[in-house]
């Protein structure tokens, strides 16, 4: 199983730990994640304007170069997945857009490639049964609230990631690691995204975290740097981590939790889930 | 030796057309050389033989026999106007020979075919001899030759930028007189000699002698099954063949008037012999294919003393599945020994 890996900007900056734990886990599960050469920012938001093809030049180039290399694409951040997958679909279905992008980027591509999220690779290729057998340290007793947010699921007819109202992939993932997923109604509500960042309006994020806490969650896990940032700031004690950090931890690797606020390490040490510092 | 320069050809044909004759000449239509009534188009020269032969001129694909109008009780019947005189330039010796075979059928014997006779007597055949044989030619195997004068009124032997006309008949002589001022006198070895040395590989491989007799008592021989098995029952071989002359008579009715017409028919069509009531004496390909080749190689020789084939090679080139006279003669040779 080899893929071209599209990390996305934040995974080289603020979300370094998301990137590192993902690579470690992939290596552990012998999934070859070869970083795409000279990729650029995916644009973070799929433009809704009709003639905004210029914004899709970067995702188009990423897809075309993965195609040139002959491999499908894998990405982690839900924002990147949303942009890449919707660009891929547009190129496959809209002849005019395809030709304009091809002429501009001068690379041939017509939507032949697939764009996967690492969770989808785990579900389809690795399968959660195999993942369960590869876990070295089971995260027993850890109550985790899976948080999907918007961009993984919506718009459903384009993303086709999971059931848009009642997704299960993160729950299955957590169970495979031995953790106990917490069911709370706000796992698919929006975290406030850029509105929260710009105008510090945090009620949306607060509602999510409050609902998770009320449902007994000790930890929130998500797959989007923007969501993590928003969710971390609205609750004093409930830590928010990336799903790959738990995955690395469960596979016996370092969870790269250093420097997070609120800090998940006391909770994990309390449940003797952290590797003993020799 | 008389010599007609190539450049004089159009003027000569224009004169022949001038005194009321329809002049046919080979023209290149989308890559296919076809005999067409000539009105000055460029005349093709690089061809083996045209798609349609003299048969198309003397026994047209569709010919009106008579016209009628009115009610069944008082019917006005008109014969069509007698055909104009015709001059056909560009046929090959094999097509000219073919017409003589057809003359035996349509003009000798108890019944003379009026339509054919009228056309035959008013048609002048200006044959262009062959300097090189086509890949499928085998006229020599059936008694013909690239320069044979048989059936032609005039044989034009092509030489360096011109022709050496030879006039076996008075009609040919008369036609040549129309170009008397264009004809020059020139020294040249007898062009017919060249005809004997033209390479014709196919002809060597066809052994026809004695075949007619041997075929008479092999009507039920199983080889006919194998031979006919690849035939698709289309009518291509019969329609391109200059000696196949079968035709059907049919009426074209338009409520109160109509025409009785005659047109080509093919013994290879499934319903060629379908009779009223549904009986068909030749229902399968075996019957039909055997009939065609026995007619050419056995019945016609018995009736007229020579094979009904002039070796023009059109069936060899045309048949989509390679079921043609040389192949059948070859397979019969192997089987009948």
């Amino acid at each position: 199983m080899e893929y071209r890996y599209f990390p996305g900007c934040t995974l080289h900056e603020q979300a370094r730990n998301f990137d590192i734990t993902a690579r470690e886990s992939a290596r552990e599960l012998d999934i070859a994640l070869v970083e795409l050469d000279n990729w650029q920012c995916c644009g973070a938001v799929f433009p809704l304007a009709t003639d905004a093809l210029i914004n899709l030049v970067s995702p188009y180039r990423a897809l075309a170069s993965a195609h040139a290399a002959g491999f499908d694409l894998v990405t982690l951040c839900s924002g990147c997945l949303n942009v890449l997958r919707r660009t891929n679909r547009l190129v496959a279905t809209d002849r005019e857009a395809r030709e304009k992008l091809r002429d501009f980027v001068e690379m041939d591509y017509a939507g032949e490639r697939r764009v996967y999220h690492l969770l989808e690779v785990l579900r389809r290729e690795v399968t959660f049964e195999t993942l369960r057998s590869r876990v070295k340290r089971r995260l027993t007793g850890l109550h985790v609230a899976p948080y999907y947010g918007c961009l993984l699921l919506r718009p459903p007819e384009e993303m086709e990631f999971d059931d848009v109202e009642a997704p299960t992939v993160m729950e299955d993932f957590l169970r495979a690691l031995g953790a106990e997923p917490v069911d709370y109604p706000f796992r698919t509500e929006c975290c406030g995204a850029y509105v929260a960042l710009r105008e510090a309006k945090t009620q949306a994020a607060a509602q999510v975290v409050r609902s998770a806490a009320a449902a007994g969650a000790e930890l929130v896990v998500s797959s989007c740097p923007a969501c993590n940032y928003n969710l971390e700031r609205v609750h004093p004690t409930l830590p928010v981590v990336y799903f790959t950090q738990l995955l690395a931890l469960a596979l016996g690797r370092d969870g790269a939790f250093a420097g997070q606020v609120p800090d998940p390490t006391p909770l994990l040490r309390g449940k003797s889930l952290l590797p003993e510092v020799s | 030796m008389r010599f007609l320069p190539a450049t004089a050809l159009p003027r000569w044909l224009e004169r022949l057309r001038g005194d009321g004759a329809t002049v046919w000449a080979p023209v290149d239509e989308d890559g296919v050389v076809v005999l067409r009534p000539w009105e000055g188009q460029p005349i093709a020269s690089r061809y083996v033989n045209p798609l349609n032969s003299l048969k198309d001129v003397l026994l047209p694909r569709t010919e009106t026999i008579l016209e009628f109008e009115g009610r069944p009780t008082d019917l006005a019947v008109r014969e069509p106007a007698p055909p104009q005189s015709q001059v056909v330039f560009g046929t090959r010796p094999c097509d000219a020979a073919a017409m003589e075979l057809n003359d035996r059928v349509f003009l000798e014997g108890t019944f003379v075919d009026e339509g054919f006779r009228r056309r035959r007597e008013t048609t002048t055949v200006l044959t262009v001899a062959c300097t090189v044989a086509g890949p499928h030619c085998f006229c020599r195997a059936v008694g013909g030759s690239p320069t044979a004068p048989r059936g032609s009124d005039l044989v034009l032997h092509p030489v360096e930028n011109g022709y050496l006309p030879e006039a076996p008949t008075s009609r040919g002589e008369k036609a040549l007189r129309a170009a008397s001022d264009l004809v020059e006198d020139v020294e040249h070895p007898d062009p017919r000699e060249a005809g004997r040395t033209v390479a014709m590989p196919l002809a060597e491989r066809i052994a026809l002698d004695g075949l007619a007799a041997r075929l008479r008592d092999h009507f039920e021989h199983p080889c006919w099954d194998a031979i006919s098995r690849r035939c698709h029952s289309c009518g291509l071989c019969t329609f391109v063949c200059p000696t196949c002359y079968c035709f059907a008579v049919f009426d074209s009715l338009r409520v109160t008037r109509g025409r009785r017409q005659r047109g080509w028919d093919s013994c290879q069509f499934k319903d060629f012999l379908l009779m009223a009531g549904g009986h068909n004496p030749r229902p399968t390909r075996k019957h039909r294919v055997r009939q065609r080749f026995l007619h050419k190689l056995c019945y016609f020789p018995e009736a007229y003393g020579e094979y009904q084939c002039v070796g023009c090679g059109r069936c060899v080139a045309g048949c989509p599945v390679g079921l043609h006279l040389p192949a059948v003669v070859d397979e019969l040779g192997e089987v009948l020994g």
Partner: protein
Amino acid sequence: MPRIGVVVCWCGHNIAGTVDVTQVTAAAAAMPGVVYAEDYKYVCSEPGQDLIRRAIADKRLDAVVVAACSPSMHEATFRQAAAAAGLNPYRVEIANVREQCSWVHRDREEATVKAVALVQAMVAKARREEPLEALRLPVTRRALVIGGGIAGMQAAMDIADAGYQVLLVEREPNLGGRMAQLSETFPTLDCASCILTPRTAEVARHPRIELLTYSEVREVAGYVGDFRVRIARKPAYVDWDRCIGCMLCQEKCPRKVPSPFERDMGFKKAIGVNFPQAVPNRPVIDREHCTYFEKGKCQVCVRVCPVEAVDFEQRETVREEAVGAIVVATGFDVLAPAEFGEYGYGRYPDVIDSLAFERLNSSSGPTGGVIRRPSDGRVPREVVFIQCVGSRDPDRGRGYCSKICCMYTAKHAMLYRHKVPDGQAYVFYMDVRAGGKGYEEFVQRTVEQAGALYLRGRVARVYPEGDRMLVRGVDTLSGQTVEVAADLVVLATAAVPRGDARELAQLLKVGTDAHGFYNEAHPKLRPVETMTRGIFLAGAVQAPRDISETVAQASGAASKVLALFSQEELVADPLVAVVDETRCAGCFLCRPVCPYQAISTRVAGNREVATVNPGLCQGCGACAVACRSGAMALKGFTDEQILAEVEALCLRTGSPG
């Protein structure tokens, strides 16, 4: 050559005013095959028709062409006149020289030339016609009604009352259908079982209705007047003839099973009936939940049954019946809202659908008519009704409006207020559709008297908060997002076709729409018929509809059946397609274009060839064009006839002589 007579009508001056009828008659006389040509002032009149009859007799005519008004006016008249004189009616053709000639053209010379051409065309067609006999199809004066709900029962009653035999097939062990599950009915709030059960008894007792409950239609062959239907009777494992209906077996049976009739909120026994007043009042054993069939033990019912009616060896029996007409009244189902994760149906017990709320209301329901929450049985202080769950939602549900939910939700709010006087009902709606008689007034009463709070807006999410359900929605009229803490949430889910509606439609060769509702022959003019002659529709099988419309439609369907049975024998138009088997290659390019599936396979000698069922074929002719070899001919409109018409119409020298 057939002897043809041409009669040119003056139609007073309507035709003669613009068309020179004498010249047309003269031209007709000169046409090949015409042995008699006459013109007359009013051919459709009695003396006019006499003229035709005399001409047929005197001139021994084989065909008649009448140049007059449009065939839609008097084709039938002239054909009957000819038939009276012994001429085959289908050898009479009409040249339309009035509506399509004299009335629409001014120039006399042009109109006359066109009239001659039109006559020429009809003469050409007449010369190529052969006599056609109207098809006489036998009529089995017995009707099959599929579905024992209110629609099926009404149709069965109407047909039986008219004196004909009816076979009523119902899949459930008892009659009643969807209506049996309802508590009260809008707008009169009279109790459903009070008006339903007497009707079921009437049907069960009716001398001319044969009741086949717990049975399903497995196969339908044949055509109008002569359908061959195979009906399977599922094993009830109880011999209903011996059983006296004492229901001891149901009482003593130890096995409690969630009852689909009660929307899984109530329980039934492994043996028994769906509800107390069920007709026929006979129990069946639910094989999947009977301990004997699972482990081979128990047999309590066998021991308690006073008449030894329990018979575990019973097998499915299939019988073949001949019927002349079929009424489909299989009703509808409600959408399983599990596809709508946002409402939490199936995850939170206090989120139920409207049908379940009906059962809560029903005195024979699981809570004896007291509205209780499924989670803890408490009487709910606040109930939220959510409308259009799956309806008017083309993306994830159905695009259409289910028509009855606005009314039954208003009813539910009204009933809730009667049973819980201090309770508060909220209704999230988009538009209230109350178009029936007294419907709007009913809804107004619900708002004014029952105090139901109608919030115009959609619900985004329903989720638990403590022991209550928080309903997050929006009130578009005030523009605010609204959050209602409710004890019970009721979803008004979309009305959808039965799960197996498509299979039955294929059996019956009846078309369905994109959702699976059956297609009526014409939405406005033939709402109770289908494209397949002899098969009729009643009730919600055709589209969501309430009880009063259903009953009206059931009587409509019954009247169609009675019209069919009133004829001596079915006269079918002979203008149907026929296959020339000597030319048919068996390629069946014709079959997919037939809207009536009238083309099937027949073995002729060692070959499979096409054959046309004259009962099903309606003579559209699509197959005659799809057939490349010309083996398929449409009688009355054969290729030869139409080509002759075209040729006659193109003749430039239309002049006679």
